[in-house]
């Protein structure tokens, strides 16, 4: 990352923080909140899915751990700040279980194990009414009481900024290079002494912690959560699609993906109403066939080609 890119990112986040001075409608703030929330989720997913090349389709597990964690820990009398720490710990515990089981295996097992684990949690949340409230749901404490939409929006921006910073630091560190080496060729990485299973697991732990914070934020905005809302496979899919659409393994990808997907789905929801999953599906097919590296990957490829022609 060059200095001008860093300056651009910093300026972008400054402007984002000032945006509520101009945008005052609650509806628009909520759409913006969703965009930044999914940008943060996409960035978190990107550490595992993009940089390490391990397709997770079960990030709803960590998202749900965040939302339910906030609800259940505070109900048990834990102070808010401790609950936030504990819910991150809970998500990391889940990550440890999933990663421990499936990172030793090659092939699509990791993707399958992530879905299976998330679905087990989904079923548990639905069927243990004494703990989770079951299908009726459970109330989540409000993080903010005044200027609700504005505060949540600012929190989402800060979370995205933190996730971006973490990604920058990781992608430039030895750890980040290990991840990319594993993605490109696991055998070669192993042969030069990279502990692939452990490296992937660390990436998943960081990813899970960020995802859980986003989940807590989401749950607290709605004040009430049910299993189908925060633990469903649709959440997992949406997180993966955001990052893939923007460009897995690129820094700006998840942000671009979140802007495109969330604003597109907001428009589709008003125009086509029920057909927005159809659009999602078609979008996925188009991305795989024509933009396999996502929007940012596609742009980078075009820039590279132009540069080569010039020289």
């Amino acid at each position: 990352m060059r200095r001008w890119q860093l300056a651009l990112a910093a300026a972008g986040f400054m402007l984002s923080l000032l945006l509520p001075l101009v945008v005052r409608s609650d509806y628009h703030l909520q759409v913006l909140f969703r965009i930044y929330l999914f940008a943060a989720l996409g960035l978190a997913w990107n550490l595992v899915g993009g940089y390490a090349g391990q397709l997770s389709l079960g990030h709803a597990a960590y998202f749900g751990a965040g939302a339910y964690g906030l609800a259940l820990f505070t109900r048990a009398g834990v102070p808010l700040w401790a609950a936030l720490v504990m819910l991150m710990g809970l998500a990391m515990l889940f990550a440890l279980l999933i990663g421990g089981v499936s990172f030793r295996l090659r092939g699509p097992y990791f993707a399958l194990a992530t879905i299976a684990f998330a679905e087990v949690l989904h079923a548990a949340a639905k069927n243990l009414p004494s703990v989770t409230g079951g299908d009726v749901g459970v109330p989540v404490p409000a993080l903010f009481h005044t200027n609700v939409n504005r505060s949540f929006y600012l929190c989402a921006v800060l979370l995205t900024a933190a996730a971006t910073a973490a990604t920058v630091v990781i992608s430039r560190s030895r750890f980040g290079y290990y991840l990319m080496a594993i993605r490109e060729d696991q055998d070669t990485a192993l042969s030069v002494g990279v502990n692939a299973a452990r490296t992937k697991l660390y990436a998943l732990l960081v990813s899970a912690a960020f995802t859980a914070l986003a989940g807590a934020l989401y749950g607290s905005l709605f004040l009430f959560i049910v299993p189908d809302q925060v633990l469903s496979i649709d959440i997992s899919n949406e997180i993966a699609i955001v990052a893939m659409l923007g460009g897995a393994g690129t820094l700006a990808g998840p942000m671009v993906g979140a802007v495109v997907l969330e604003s597109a789905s907001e428009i589709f929801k008003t125009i086509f109403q029920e057909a927005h999953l159809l659009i999602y599906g078609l979008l996925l097919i188009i991305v795989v066939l024509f933009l396999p590296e996502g929007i940012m990957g596609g742009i980078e490829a075009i820039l590279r080609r132009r540069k080569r022609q010039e020289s």
Partner: protein
Amino acid sequence: MDAFTTLQAVVNGVLTGALYALVGMGMALIFGVMRIVNFAHGTFMMLGMYATYVLFLHGHLIPYYSFPLVALGMYGLGYLIYMGLLRPIHGQSDFMQILLTLGVGLAITDAIQLVFGADYHQINFPLLEKNLHLGSRITVNAPWLVSFGIALVAGAGLYFFVMHTMMGRAARAIAQNRYAAPLMGIHLHRVQAFWFGLGVAAAAVAGSLLLPVFYLYPGVGDQFTLKAFVMVVLGGMESIVGAATAGLLLGVVENLTSLYWGNEWALAVDFVIFLLVLSLRPSGIFGRQKA
């Protein structure tokens, strides 16, 4: 709960399991043998159910007559999807196949919901009310038994086809070594498209046979995609017999789970078994242990 209740659950489990087995065998061909990670498998099953439903409603064909038609149509669809969508991304990572088939699944499911709505449907014909009594305490619902018989024949036919025909040999050759097989004169894409179509058809036939005993709605196939993966992994990847056995096992386990813990835990138990097998014996219960 006495022994007869448990026995009844086991009998029901075997009957359900035979249909699961058919779904699993289709997935074993697609995922186990040809390594195409098909996340739309349950969607194809659901599509088979809707096709059967339409034939029942407008053609007055009961599922036991219409399933060959459904199989043929879904074979064609599978062939086209392979040639049109999966062939272009041949050689890329699993990642891309998963996302592509996920997209196909989402698009088809939502399209079905737009056409038929999200309501539950059910079909009715005289056979549905018949019950057979085995001894004094065990009852078997007639449509389940007919479906069981057809699934058994279809499964045996599929097995014969894989083991004793040129197409089957070609598929097994690809499973053994996907780089050497084309050098031996096997037309990779034609063979893969054929078996992909057949795997889709197997799922769709299972859907046809489940229609008399299941409620029909657009999301009915969703859980079957994962169940099919579970069966293939438990069965030891390449083995279609292994996948079929795993299907029977899941059927019995689910019915026993429903009996003792409640229906809502059935799916969770499937996945817990899956995660346990992945962590303890990744080559599957029925697979040969590899290093």
